[in-house]
């Protein structure tokens, strides 16, 4: 009798082990973009195809609003329960120990695969020499214009402004009753900082010294001049009111509703405004942002997929990241969600060549700096300190220099504290 009991217990244990072995690996996937409608069809198709090809792995998307994305990730990472696959501010996350170095997996890949990313592109995904993410998509910023509004103002869409003076002249003509040339971004996200940096670079200025140990927003006269010009667009009445609450969402809403004629944004914003107002399809054109110096760079934000430090199945996660970085999905992302490729072996892809707007963004992106900037406290500086200074300067333009001097001191202190 006792033996029978033992045998039954052993069989039950084996059954449990077998059942557990048959359970698929579940990978959670969190990015700030899964809730964006233009990307939804792509990620759903990616998951479906990956799961069909890998029956033992399930991918579970974590849907979270953009502004709560980092909070949710950090809370989960602190509890060592972070989703396996994440797209986050890579340097900050790596510095805090939330991510797993990927060199082991990367180095095991064939040379052909590794050659698809340029060293410059990969450098944006490294921290202290280790690879923490695979660049999946990017976005080069350019000036996006509404062709109808430009033509209506008597301006030539084939000759967009190249200098600040020309831009100021266009801005006056594009401003009318209840309509403005552009929107200055001052809302509390790092998009405010992205656009500010581009204006600074367009004047030959720098926001930081070369090794990022000192902030030079006011210290560098060229930077300060750029800040005053850009934020001054509001005072001049050519930018939409309420800039301190204007972010990506508000800016693209204003553009889609034809309240503003031009916006500084990436290719994905075109998918957003076309979705909001289909009448705008084919009615936008892009140009490099106006600059006061030759060869002024624009900004390319790079989104890399990383594996969180607490992921129990990093091999499966790497498998999905590789799948998602494949050519097919790179093309789909570009075509459907207007996200630009980060692979350098796709420039001649017919799908890209057939899209003149994308081709133009690619050309503009040939002279771009990658974003986010490589500082472990960048997330805080970009979304808090710089935005706060921009808001203060927008509310008290006469104190702009003083405000950015204070910002220099505050940020420099933080950079030195790291």
């Amino acid at each position, binding site marked *: 009798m006792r033996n029978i009991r033992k045998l039954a217990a052993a069989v039950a244990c084996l059954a449990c082990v077998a059942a557990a072995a048959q359970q698929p690996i579940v990978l959670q996937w969190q990015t700030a973009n899964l809730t964006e409608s233009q990307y939804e069809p792509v990620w759903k198709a990616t998951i479906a195809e990956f799961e069909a090809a890998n029956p033992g792995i399930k991918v579970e998307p974590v849907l979270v609003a953009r*502004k709560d994305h*980092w*909070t949710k990730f*950090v809370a989960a*990472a*602190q509890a*060592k329960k972070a989703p396996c696959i994440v797209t986050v501010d890579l340097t*900050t996350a790596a*510095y*805090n*120990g*939330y991510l797993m170095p990927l060199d082991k997996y990367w180095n095991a890949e064939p040379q052909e695969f590794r050659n698809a990313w340029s060293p410059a592109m990969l450098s944006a995904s490294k921290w202290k020499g280790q690879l923490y993410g695979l660049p999946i998509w990017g976005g080069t910023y350019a000036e996006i214009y509404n062709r109808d509004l430009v033509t209506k103002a008597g301006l030539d869409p084939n000759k967009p402004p190249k200098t600040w003076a020309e831009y100021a002249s266009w801005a006056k003509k594009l401003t009318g009753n209840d309509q403005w040339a552009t929107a200055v971004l*001052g*809302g*509390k996200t790092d998009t405010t900082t992205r656009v500010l940096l581009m204006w600074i670079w367009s004047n030959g200025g720098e926001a930081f010294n070369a090794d990022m140990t000192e902030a030079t927003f006011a210290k560098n006269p060229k930077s300060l001049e750029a800040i005053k010009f850009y934020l001054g667009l509001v005072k001049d009445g050519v930018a*939409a*009111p*309420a*800039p*301190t*609450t204007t972010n990506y969402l*508000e800016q693209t*809403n*204003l553009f889609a*509703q034809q*309240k503003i004629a031009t916006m500084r944004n990436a290719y994905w914003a075109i998918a957003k405004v076309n979705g909001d107002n289909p009448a705008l399809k084919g009615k936008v054109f892009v140009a490099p942002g106006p600059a006061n110096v030759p060869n002024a760079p624009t900004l390319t934000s790079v989104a890399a997929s990383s594996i969180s*430090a607490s992921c129990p199945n990093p091999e499966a996660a790497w498998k999905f990241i590789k799948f998602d970085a494949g050519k097919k999905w790179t093309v789909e992302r570009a075509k459907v969600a207007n996200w630009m490729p980060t692979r350098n072996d796709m420039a001649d892809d017919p799908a890209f060549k057939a899209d003149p707007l994308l081709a133009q963004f690619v050309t503009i992106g040939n002279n771009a700096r990658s974003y986010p900037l490589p500082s472990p*406290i960048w*997330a*805080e500086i970009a*979304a*808090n300190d710089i*935005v*706060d200074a921009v*808001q*203060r300067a*927008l*509310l008290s333009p006469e104190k702009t220099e003083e405000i950015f001097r204070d910002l220099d001191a505050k940020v420099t202190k933080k950079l030195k504290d790291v």
Partner: protein
Amino acid sequence: MRSSSWTRRRRVGYAFIAPVFLFLCAVVLFPLGHAFYTSLLRVRGLSSTFVGFANYARVLTDDAFWHSLGVSLAFTTSCVLLHMAIGLGLALLLDGLRFARTALRIAFLTPWMVAPAVGATIWLWLLEPQFGVVNYLLVAWGAVKAPLAWLGEPALAFASVVAVDTWRGVPFVMLLMLAGLQTIPREQYEAAAIDGADAWQRFRYVTLPNLRYLLVVASTLDVINTIRHYDIIGVMTAGGPAGATEVLPVLLYNTAFRGNRFGEAAAIGVLLLAIVLAFSLLHIRAARLER
């Protein structure tokens, strides 16, 4: 014999309250202890270093903390005064009604039923400068010439979050006051009327003294509730513009999740707890005195 029975009954009593005590330890005392412990650490992601009270020193010498404390006090004072005044007014109105009382009571309670974050999101869109309903109506009625940046100007943003918090907080006070009004003996009003007291005198000398205890309880509870409130401001302004609405809970959130400085954020949390505790003690003392 008697003593051993008493001891046994005491033990049984302890056994009965033990599960609740353990539950409270798990959900209140442990997190509080952990928060205090975190406030003594310099946290860098998953690693941390013991720094003693350095985080407190840092927070207390930071202008941002004192600025936020000022904003918190201004916000709490404005909100509580408005909650009390409007809540009492509505309670008097409902108490005096002889028809549609239940329907109106439910209608006035609606803001309280809505989750604060959901309510704040609704208001965020209503107050949107270009496409919001509020500006549309104000411009259409000629009340303003151009749309207002409700959440974009410091004074307007502060007034807007106070208004939305008032919308959310009034029903709680109204409900308490209404319950209090219904306990006042009608004879007192009749006696006052016989003595020739007018409506104001009846309110001043009958209603208010009878509601004094409830007013103290409601206002202290409301202070405690409002000073630690995050949702509305977090959703509507995230503390902006330029820190104009950055109350202490928002500063705490921004320090923890935007600044990734959990030690300092925990120190702010402990200081906020001290403020709330001070009000709680005040509440207990006032309630005792009033009784």
